[in-house]
């Protein structure tokens, strides 16, 4: 080990060793987002997998991003085996060489006999990840705060005259710029083309300017639900599963506007350098087969990423799925490779804009 390596790796290694001493080597560590979502994964994936293989699964939570994976891989001390990542992060982490590549030909076929490459939804197979759920970045509102006409379209989010009240937005340019353009009249199919020009970016920021002083910014997925519940905002962008939980399970008067939802995928990926590569791969294949993905919808309203699983979803849950036909009609897929190119400069510009 050269001095340079020693300098960069030693402190990281020490910190990580100290943090990871508690987990035994035979366990498989699966990292996900916590809350109701992790619970659904434990029921649908972890428990059956432990039953089948005898491998104990340690469930850890994180709050997104790939900084921790990067730290573990660079320090050469990987304690996370399988991780649930958003699409943008799968692409990024794969680019940075932090994840194990997965050959789609080795994935199990669908129940209907379809090859995995045909069975997963569009974009559901990345070089380093296999999608498990489809979820929607949607707009939700508190029904009790609108006595007369209720909002029903994305445009209404930007119309604070007709639909008064503060708005909740995630503190990131991603998807907010797209929403702004669409509310300004750009059709979903052209959003990224327009956003690719300097004029398009200005136009998106100008539209956001209209509601800037009405916005409460949130960062974690649980915050928008809390903001709605506290009456801090009347309308907010959110993730469909969280709103489902608040309205259907906890009985809050929240409604989802499915118009122009931004469809997103979550992926299972394996951290490069894991000591349990075989088990991790086994777990990944097990939990992304037709039956497991369909089973998860019994516990949470996120849609399975396999077409063959959708047929198995119960009638009760189907209307809450992001991929239900009536919800999906105006859905726009987030273009993550476009964002990979532009995130650095747009994030900087967004931060500067926020600050002004």
């Amino acid at each position: 080990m050269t001095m340079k390596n020693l300098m960069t790796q030693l402190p990281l290694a020490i910190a990580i060793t100290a943090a990871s001493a508690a987990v035994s080597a035979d366990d498989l560590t699966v990292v996900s987002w916590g809350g109701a979502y992790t619970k659904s994964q434990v029921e649908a994936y972890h428990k059956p997998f432990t039953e089948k293989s005898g491998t104990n699964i340690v469930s850890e939570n994180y709050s997104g991003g790939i900084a921790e994976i990067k730290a573990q891989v660079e320090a050469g001390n990987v304690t996370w085996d399988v991780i649930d990542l958003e699409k943008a992060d799968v692409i990024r982490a794969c680019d940075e060489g932090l994840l194990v590549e997965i050959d789609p030909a080795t994935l199990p076929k669908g129940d209907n006999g379809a090859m995995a490459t045909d069975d997963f939804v569009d974009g559901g197979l990345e070089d380093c990840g296999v999608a498990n759920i489809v979820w929607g970045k949607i707009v939700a509102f508190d029904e009790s705060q609108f006595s007369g006409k209720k909002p029903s379209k994305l445009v209404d989010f930007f119309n604070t005259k007709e639909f008064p009240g503060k708005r909740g937005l995630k503190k990131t340019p991603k998807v907010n710029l797209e929403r702004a353009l669409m509310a300004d009249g750009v059709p979903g199919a052209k959003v990224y083309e327009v956003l690719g020009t300097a004029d398009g970016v200005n136009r998106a920021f100008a539209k956001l300017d209209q509601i800037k002083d009405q916005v409460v910014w949130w960062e974690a997925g649980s915050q928008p639900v809390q903001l709605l519940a506290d009456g801090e905002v009347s309308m907010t962008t959110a993730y469909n599963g969280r709103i489902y939980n608040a309205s259907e399970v906890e009985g809050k008067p929240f409604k989802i506007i499915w118009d122009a939802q931004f469809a997103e995928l979550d992926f299972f990926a394996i951290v490069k350098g894991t000591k349990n590569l075989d088990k991790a791969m086994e777990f990944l294949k097990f939990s992304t087969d037709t039956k497991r993905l369909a089973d998860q919808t019994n516990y949470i309203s996120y849609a399975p990423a396999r077409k063959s699983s959708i047929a198995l979803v119960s009638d009760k849950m189907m209307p809450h799925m992001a991929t239900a036909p009536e919800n999906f009609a105006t859905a726009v897929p987030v273009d993550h490779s476009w964002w990979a190119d532009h995130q650095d400069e747009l994030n900087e510009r967004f931060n500067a804009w926020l600050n002004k």
Partner: protein
Amino acid sequence: MNTTPDLASNAPEIDPQLKLRLRKAERFLKVRALLLVVPLVVFVLFTFVLPLTEMLYRSIHNPILVDNLPEVAALMRDWDQQQLPGDDIFTAVGKGLVVAREQKTIGRIANRLNSEHAGMRSLLTKSARKLRKYKGDDYKDYMLSLDKRWGEAETWGAFKVLSSEYTLTHYLAAFDMQYNAQGEIVSQPEERQIYVDMLLKTLKLSLLVTLFCVLLGYPLAYYLSILPPGKSNLLMILVLLPFWTSLLVRTSSWIVMLQGQGVVNSTLISLGILSEPLDMMYNQIGTVVAMTHILLPFMILPTYSVMKSISPVYMRAARSLGATPANAFFKVYFPQTIPGLSAGAILVFILSIGYYITPALVGGRTGQMISNLIAYHMQTSLNWGLGAALAGSLLAVVLVLYWIYNRLVGSSQMKLG
């Protein structure tokens, strides 16, 4: 301690054996003292000095191109940025990309280049895919026909910036500057300038918090110091109780208090004082209020301990010699409290300049501080170099301010308790 050997050397009649034994005994004491502090030294080395050095190193160290495409890096260092690079550079880049694609390093190279110039990521990955099948040897023509961006100065400017192992780009970015395509240092476009503003705002908010802590803490500390012990102990517990409560709990309770439908607003509205809720949250007011509350004990405790040790006799003497109360206070009492006051103020200021959780939770859009951006670059954008450069700049600012403070007040004039 050090008077003993002197005495020994001034007294030649003492037995040399005794001198030797004394030295031995002293050496033993020294070694024992050293051994006692070894754990601390090791601890500080591993938890403070090493990470700090590593961070500063990362802010200038930039090995990605040199390590992965050494030939390209070497050629780019000689390129003068006047016109488009020659065939040799195109060939080196073209061949290098194919190799990097095979070795799976292209993603990292592309991400780093992309942070210098947007769009480099797709340009590199797309070109590498096509170049793999290219059999000819006129790379320049071929690459220019693949994508017109290969003919643009900005593309090559990004390569040039990364061509040496050590670079100042992160520090330039931390001060809203960049290298342009010709290699000159210019300002960032106005809509992307943020870090200088943020640094100034951080200083402003920290100064405000310090000022409020002084204004609120000084009289309270004075009151505590003149009360009889029974009452002052009770009040002291009221100061310490929040101090012992978790930072997160206290910040969240401020959210409950200050938000639009929160305790303060709904009380004021139900009393008829306000008709619309005030915006006291998710802006600079929220940050300053919550931080002042959280940092107040750091002001009160050192000030109190110094005031406690000032005898009331001085004030009485001043009054009996004819000073007005104000005069007595400013000429006699106040100067004696400066050690505690300045210790408290500098504690609060330095703690608040690096504050992170509270602004993140209650600062909203405008109440953010520079640590929130550092955390953002460490956790989200993964631009660790820029994060390190921002942290390095913050460190430099703190050191400069401390130096100025030391010149004005003097560090000996500081007493923590």
